[in-house]
């Protein structure tokens, strides 16, 4: 629909609205007619609705802005447009199946949910120390690659929203290399469900470490290219510097974590504070800046990409030197079958089929019980935090001793971070709202779950 047919004051207004308040509907096109009409009416206070379907709200986020000219006076954030009930659904599946659900929350950074959830379940089971080293190495490898991918998307889409399509294409090119690695390891580009309670689903296919080493220079090049395009770019700097500022005290109070709090100067990183998956054994820095605005948040993301590459290289060397199982030895928890590729596609390995179908009835029963019924987890509750690409991710898992989670709650960093949008944007320009939002990098799948 063109603006000319739609962009005129309409008589219809929702019940409860102040009588006499005119309402305009615009769907793209030229707003000249609306502007002229608004000017004629002489209204000072204009309420503009942005989203939930709007390209620069990073998904289905709704912003309600009260503007005075170009200045934002008040901003409200509306969420819930992508609520899929993942947490509730997890209560109706086995502990292992839960991974399939939580990977879909923040779909740009799926491995963080998988790892956080599995670490929580392992803590409940009391098998944290029995998870094989190789499984932790694979987890670290996937998480760090995922961190780069997530940051590339954050920076690239942020650039796209400023009109710099090149930034997005460069970023997505770099992300593509990472997704190829994911595809090779897990078989999927997103929604992997590869990390399982007790380890990971499958060992790395042969030649993976070399393949990652082969692609890493490309990934580094994409990050570098993006950096070259932005760091000293006068347009970029003028759009991003001193926009969306938040103080350290405010970000602590508002529960704002991740690149935003590190840009304010606090090296708050769960990988260093309360290490998991053996992060204490890796050599890496926590990049910080001294002023948390959109520009510095982007710079922190760039620095983190290089730190992640450092960790990935260390993990690759260790993976070459550490053969071994990728799942706990306890057969009451470990998934019984190894997958393999046959002539008719992927499935259980032939040896396993042979064993359960023709040699061992007990193996068949065990396989059947573990796959359909699942394992039981002793009653209790734990909270596990990991450093997500967007901040501190927390998982609260409660067990009632059954084969399914009694409750699984995810403290998604995007959700917490979004709370500070209003504080960062009120009093600023309308055009800066988009920049600020992009610098927070919310993913609505994680926000609404």
């Amino acid at each position, binding site marked *: 629909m063109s603006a000319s047919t739609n962009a005129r004051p309409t008589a219809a207004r929702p019940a409860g609205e102040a009588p006499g308040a005119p309402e305009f509907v615009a769907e793209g096109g030229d707003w000249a007619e609306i502007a002229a009409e608004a000017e004629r009416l002489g209204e000072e206070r204009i309420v503009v609705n942005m989203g939930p379907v709007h390209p620069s709200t990073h998904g289905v986020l709704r912003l309600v802005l009260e503007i005075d000219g170009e200045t934002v006076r008040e901003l409200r954030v509306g*969420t*819930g447009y992508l*609520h899929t*009930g993942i*947490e*509730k*659904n997890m*209560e*109706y*599946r086995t502990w292992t199946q839960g991974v399939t659900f939580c990977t879909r929350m923040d779909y740009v950074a799926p491995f963080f949910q998988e790892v956080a959830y599995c670490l929580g379940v392992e*803590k*409940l089971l*009391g098998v944290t120390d029995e998870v094989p080293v190789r499984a932790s190495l694979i987890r670290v490898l996937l998480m760090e690659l995922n961190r780069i991918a997530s940051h590339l998307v954050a920076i690239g889409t942020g650039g796209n929203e400023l009109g710099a399509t090149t930034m997005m294409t460069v970023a997505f090119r770099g992300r593509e290399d990472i997704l190829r690695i994911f595809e090779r390891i897990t078989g999927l580009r997103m929604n992997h469900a590869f990390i399982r309670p007790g380890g990971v689903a499958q060992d790395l296919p042969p030649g993976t470490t070399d393949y990652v080493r082969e692609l890493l220079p490309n990934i580094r090049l994409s990050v570098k290219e993006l950096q070259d395009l932005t760091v000293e770019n006068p347009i970029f700097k003028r759009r991003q510097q001193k926009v969306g500022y938040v103080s350290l005290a405010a970000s*602590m*109070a*508002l*529960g*704002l*974590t991740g690149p935003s709090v590190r840009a304010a100067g*606090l090296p*708050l990183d769960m990988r260093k*504070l*309360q290490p998991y998956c053996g992060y204490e054994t890796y050599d890496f820095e926590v990049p910080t800046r001294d002023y948390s605005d959109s520009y510095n948040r982007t710079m922190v993301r760039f620095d983190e990409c290089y730190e992640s590459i450092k960790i990935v290289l260390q993990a690759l060397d260790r993976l070459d030197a550490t053969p071994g199982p990728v799942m706990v030895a306890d057969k009451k928890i470990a998934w019984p079958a190894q997958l393999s590729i046959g002539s008719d596609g992927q499935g259980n390995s032939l040896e396993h089929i042979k064993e359960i179908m023709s040699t061992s009835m007990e193996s068949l029963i065990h396989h059947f019980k573990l796959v*359909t*019924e*699942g394992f039981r987890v002793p*009653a*209790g*509750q*734990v*909270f596990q*935090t990991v450093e997500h690409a967007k901040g*501190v991710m*927390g998982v*609260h898992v*409660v067990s*009632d*001793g*059954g*084969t*399914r989670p*009694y*409750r699984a*709650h995810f*403290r998604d960093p995007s*959700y*917490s971070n*979004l*709370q500070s949008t209003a504080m960062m944007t009120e009093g600023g320009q309308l055009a800066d709202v988009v920049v600020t939002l992009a610098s927070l990098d919310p993913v609505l799948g994680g926000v*609404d*779950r």
Partner: protein
Amino acid sequence: MSERDDEKQSAAGAAKPGASSAEVGQRATASALEAGSQNIPAGPRGGRTQLEVIATHRGLFGVEGTGDTSGFGGLVSTIALPPASERPYGGWFDEVVDILVEILTEQGLDPEAVLEKVVVDRGELTIFVAREHIDTVCRALRDDQDLRFELCLGVSGVHYPQDSGRELHAVYQLMSVTHVRQLRLEVACPDSDPHIPTVVDTYPGNDWHERETWDMFGIVFDGHPSLARTLMPDDWVGHPQRKDYPLGGIPVEYKGAVVPPPDNRRSYR
């Protein structure tokens, strides 16, 4: 002949769990309650029963409605959460609880009444707080220089329908960046009076998390600046993550067979 009749009768008796197994269930629950009560130190704890039993399961497979032919139909298992811990709690847990008790005493409060119980489980500290004092406890944990829990990682609700009088639990996870510590506060309220004071004044970042918990569990956080739903539409009736709220879903027909929705499938609990 007579032998076979006897067999039939006993088989029929086993197949009808009826009243006998219900008695077993009650007995098991009562004994588990007694076992649980031994772990609670005697003292003025608001006269409330410290109930850790959260569920009673019957049979081996948790199947209801259909005949359980495994012979384990009469099996009753009680599910209890970890009980209150005895001192010493270990590590820095004692120190934090001691300081908290000290601060509460200074403020003229009875620490025994404010801190209902302390549970140390799987290396994590959980402090159960009487609901009217949650904000006081949060403020003490945030502001005292030896505690400094600056960051609240949100609140999560849990619904325990069998924990009568304390059905709805709100679980707060606090983190101290200064001392690199995490602890958990748990507050319970009855389903009939689902009110808990807000902690938004102390931790502004808990704003949306409390809204989410209200939305999903129906816990009213008194004093919250704008307790609106975050996930469900504003006019939605009910709170979806309560245990009595159905998952929903429709049966799917595939090649003549009908696959029921996930919450109606035969499952193992």
